[in-house]
């Protein structure tokens, strides 16, 4: 018996040419894409007026600002800030709930297994996409025109922009639901509403609850910024203090936001775990 023979590289090359010599086009494509990406990047730097001197002086300024930020100090306005933070949390909470309540029925219309006809589904989907394509800040500006300055406009802005996002996610969750239970309900003589109530909802509710919690979390972040355009919450204070260059207050406000977001993260993580249980967290 012979030992294991070392394969001859030359022979291997002949036998499997496609492994040893990748086609020229594939090799060129990779480098071409990289060169193109780099070219756009450089063009962008030039077109957007980046220059070394500007970066240097800016970084210098930034270092100076960072020094002025320490130590964080709220001055005498701590109660105002706490109230603003409460407002922000309220905006996130209410906005998300409102969005979920509106998105739930509409998302059924966008799910393939509820509405089989694409003619009805398509416009609903595009509606979600359109609403999602408009940023929360833009919605905030629109709602300020309608209900005036203040946190209520913020609630409506978050509700509007999340309506699109949640609607899409909900309809996807509904589409991945198991059809067998729905068929079971239908076989026992249930009508369309029964099918949705007893066949679909029990499956999708935990997923949806998890998503809503996640959105409350991420909306705490969005709600901190809509104040910048005047829709209430801590963003208003933050923007004002930045404009008047009160850097110690700015750093304190940023710290408050970080702590609040971390706290909400922690709570919603616990809640999500409690609702979905030990199954995979969607």
């Amino acid at each position, binding site marked *: 018996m012979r030992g294991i023979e070392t394969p001859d590289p030359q022979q291997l090359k002949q036998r499997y040419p496609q492994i040893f010599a990748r086609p020229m086009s594939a090799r060129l494509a990779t480098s071409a894409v990289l060169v193109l990406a780099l070219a756009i990047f450089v063009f962008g730097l030039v077109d957007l007026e980046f220059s070394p001197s500007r970066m240097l002086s*800016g*970084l210098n300024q930034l270092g100076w600002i960072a020094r002025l930020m320490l130590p964080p100090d709220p001055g005498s306005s701590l109660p105002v800030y706490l109230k603003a933070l409460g407002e922000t949390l309220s*905006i996130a909470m209410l906005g998300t709930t409102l969005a979920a309540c509106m998105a739930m029925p509409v998302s059924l219309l966008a799910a393939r297994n509820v509405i089989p006809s694409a003619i009805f589904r398509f416009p609903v989907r595009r509606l979600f996409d359109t609403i999602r394509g408009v940023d929360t800040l833009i919605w905030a500006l629109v709602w300020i*025109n309608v209900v005036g300055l203040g946190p209520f406009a913020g609630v409506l802005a978050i509700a509007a922009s999340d309506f699109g996002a949640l609607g899409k996610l909900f309809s996807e969750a509904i589409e991945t639901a198991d059809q067998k239970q729905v068929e079971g309900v239908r076989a026992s003589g249930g009508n369309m509403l029964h099918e949705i109530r007893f066949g679909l909802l029990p499956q999708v509710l935990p997923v949806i609850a998890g998503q809503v919690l996640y959105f409350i979390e991420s909306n705490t972040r969005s709600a901190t910024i809509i104040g910048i355009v005047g829709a209430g919450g801590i963003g208003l204070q933050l923007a004002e203090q930045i404009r008047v260059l009160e850097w110690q207050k700015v750093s304190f406000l940023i710290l408050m936001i970080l702590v609040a977001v971390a706290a909400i993260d922690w709570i919603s993580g616990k809640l999500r775990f409690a609702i979905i249980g030990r199954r995979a967290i969607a």
Partner: protein
Amino acid sequence: MTTSVPILPAHQLAGFRDSYGAAVRRRRLHLFVGMLIFGCVLLVSAIGAEVNLRTFYTYFGNFISYFDRIFTLDDGHRVWTNLPEWFWGLKKWSKLLGETLLISYVGTTVGMVVGFCLNFLAAENTSPAPWVRFAVRRLLEFARTVPGIVFALIFVIAFGLGPVPGVLAIAVHSSGALGKLFSEIVENADMKPVEGIRSTGASWLSCMRFAVLPQVIAGFSSYTLLRFEINVREASVMGFVGAGGIGQELVVAIRKFYYSDVSAILVMIVLTVFLLDIGTGWLRGRLFGAGARA
């Protein structure tokens, strides 16, 4: 022949029925208490957010009529009857929209590079030392949690008005977000190739390059494309605080009630986002096969 369904005797059945009833009652109680707490939280938030249903009711007509107004030209006709009039500023707006895309592109690229460099230090299986991991993770968390537009506000003061602060704000925020996502991909990577490479006496850098990178590159590109999409949306509002892009025009149009301009700019933004959505979806499909949509 008759078949009989076996039914337990009544006294045994009663026990099961009781425990089932108790379980259902307990569930209902949990649900009820949960709903009650949720309701209370909502009520408190409603007071905190100064929700005023009467204002809402009175002015809701404004919301509908707002959309009516933004789709009406100054001469009273619907916007789509006179396209050149509606998109009178097409050239200027296209240029600004292009700038928005560039801001997002450059910001995402810088963010990707920074996130790429940092994520190997933050991932549990590749980090050289625990303290490095801790420090990098906190840094990424900070960059991710502070909203991009807050960075933009601060950078506008440091770097002056224009697209530069917008790019930097997006870069910082993206490096935080991408760094975290990247490190999660790396943590899921198979470590056997790393052992193989290390056994040949390679350095840490070579291990990353030849063992980890080939496994994770597809996920990285996919997330970067997704981030680019998100950043376009974000860059469209950077102009609100003076950080370049189409946001500047939009905020002026909304604040000064140039109604038809508002709708024209919004239509352009939404269309761009649509096209990008489709474009990046197609690109992802081409790059990683139809099944690999992360």
